[in-house]
């Protein structure tokens, strides 16, 4: 039952995705109409809120959402705090209640903090879905989830095994030994290792305090202390370039593989130089696309409480679990060949 909670996910995102203040997109806050099904009955108004508007992760999310708007022909209201700010999120929800939108899709900064406002919206007949990070289950109908802890853990382990030919020693760099979400992933990594890869061996797990430089130092030590090491698995985002830099400086590029959970933009150079082989993350735009499809289906009545699956446009049929979580699917592997197609 690997059900990642919103707290874990928000911690993860906090560490992973505190990202650049890119240019705010023009047209925020304005109602926009999709080209699609004009005239087909009453048009739904869907309000869509990221954790923060100036964050390239959520800007990519928004791209996917706008793609779905075009397909579905709904009115989109897009707004969110400039920087992550739970109080501002509540304020925006209150505004949307006053405006009387049909559905809200919200990435929640604070699980409990926003639940009151979302419940109020539900009492007024507004449907609520959350995406990326959940609120309490009674404050929304569905949660659009990027990946499960099991999906992340198994994805990392399978990719490491593939890179090593299912044989040899590897080590893990994590953020801290107490980070709940990463410990959950490690549990699934180790379970997968025990179940499927008897010839692989996890020799050590080191914390990097969520810092690139510390990850680099730990990797330098691991490489020296374990001469047979074949792979470094970095499961927090700053550790991926940190581990890669250490492998490069030790002159072991290619001989020791590097993979991890991180952002394509921070690892592009190392991927292209063949130092890092794989970076794993979900396709962020797909998350926004799915969130908007779920919101539309909920608003139009196509998706109801208790449904176990749901068809989301080009993503096809997706499962809905008993907690109302719609899972985007397995994480995506970025590598040398495809990294240039992504800009987050």
């Amino acid at each position, binding site marked *: 039952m690997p059900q990642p909670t919103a707290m874990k996910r928000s911690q993860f995102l906090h560490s992973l995705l505190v990202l650049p203040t890119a240019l705010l997109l023009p047209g925020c806050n304005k109602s926009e109409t999709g080209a699609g099904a004009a005239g087909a009955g009453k048009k739904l108004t869907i309000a869509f809120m990221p954790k923060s508007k100036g964050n390239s992760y959520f800007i990519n999310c928004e791209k996917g959402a706008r793609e779905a708007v075009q397909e579905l022909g709904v009115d989109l209201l897009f707004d969110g705090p400039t920087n992550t700010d739970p109080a501002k999120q509540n304020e925006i929800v209150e505004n949307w209640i006053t405006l009387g939108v049909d559905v809200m899709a919200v990435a929640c900064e604070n699980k409990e903090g926003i639940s009151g406002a979302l419940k109020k919206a539900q009492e007024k007949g507004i449907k609520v879905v959350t995406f990326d990070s959940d609120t309490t289950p009674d404050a929304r109908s569905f949660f659009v989830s990027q990946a499960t802890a099991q999906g992340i853990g198994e994805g990392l382990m399978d990719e490491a095994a593939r890179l090593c030919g299912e044989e040899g020693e590897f080590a893990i760099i994590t953020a801290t030994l107490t980070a709940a979400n990463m410990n959950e992933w490690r549990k699934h990594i180790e379970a997968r290792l025990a179940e499927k890869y008897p010839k692989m061996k996890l020799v*050590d797990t080191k914390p990097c305090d969520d*810092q690139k430089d510390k990850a680099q*130092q730990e990797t*330098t*030590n691991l490489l*020296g202390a374990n001469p047979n090491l074949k792979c470094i698995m970095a499961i927090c985002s700053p550790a991926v*370039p940190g581990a890669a830099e250490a492998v490069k*400086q*030790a002159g072991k590029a290619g001989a020791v593989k590097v993979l991890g959970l991180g952002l394509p933009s921070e690892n592009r150079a190392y991927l292209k130089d063949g130092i890092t082989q794989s970076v794993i993350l979900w396709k962020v735009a797909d998350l926004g696309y799915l969130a908007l499809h779920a919101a539309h289906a909920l608003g139009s009545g196509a998706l109801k409480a208790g449904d176990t699956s749901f068809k989301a446009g080009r993503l096809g049929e997706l499962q809905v679990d008993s907690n109302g979580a719609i899972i985007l699917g397995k994480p995506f592997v970025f590598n040398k060949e495809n990294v240039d197609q992504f800009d987050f």
Partner: protein
Amino acid sequence: MNRYFRELSVAGALVLLLALLGVVAPQFFELQPLLSRLTAQVPTLVLTIGIAMVMITRQIDISVGSQFGLCAVLAGNLLAGGLSLPLALPLAATAGAAMGALNGCLVAWLGLPSIVVTLATMVTWAEVLRLTQQGRFINLPAGVQWLGLSQPAGQTALLAASLGLLAAMAWLLKNRSGGRHLYAVGSDAEAARLSGINPKGTTFWVFVCMGALAGVAAVCNLVQSPQVDPKCGTGLELKAIAAAVVGGIAVNGGRGSLWGAFVGLLLLATINPALTFLHVEAYWEKAIQGLVILLAVVADGIRSRRNAS
């Protein structure tokens, strides 16, 4: 002998640890990884020089990690925007000195406790950094890493420069009147004032110097990698303070040497890789480092009680 007992006992512990590694894990002494490990400590060494001076003056500065981060991000962004590398050092040092001057003014002339002042500036600079940079890494242009030299040459240059800085500052502290003033003010500010030293001015300049060193340390870190992590300064203040304390810089001022702080840093910086090479679980790292610091503080306590009686 007795005078340097503390420094010598720390050096003894370091030698024991290295001897253990030599027997159990001789690969610890492979040249290139050893050079990388040492170079990685250069930024902390530069900070430790500054923090030792601050502590000798009977002050503390816990904002140096934030100063370091801000200087690194400022210099990184300017380098990415085309600033030439030789200008990065004076620029970062100036930015650091300005932040140090703010601390220095508040502590020296308003008489506020340095722990509170620097706690406030630590949080303030960390938030400024978070809001402006939003956690984004900075990609540096080619030619910044290792100052455009080869990796071993760049590492050797950084090590040599930082050891040169250490030797120069240690000499200044011991042999020049400005340096002796730090000890005088740290031992007894009133007595120092009566003997013609300006304790407020001394305190101010120590904080300015600390800030400038934080800027220098940031550049020493920045040239070791093709990217700047805006979180690079987080926690560095504690590493530097711990090194100084373990190396025999008295927490209540007036005593200690930069060479001692250097040995303290070497000991603390060896514990972490040693655990990896001895295959001890990472859970022990912080506990062991804490124990070493505790031992140092207890030794200080015993010493000052004995001196008092």
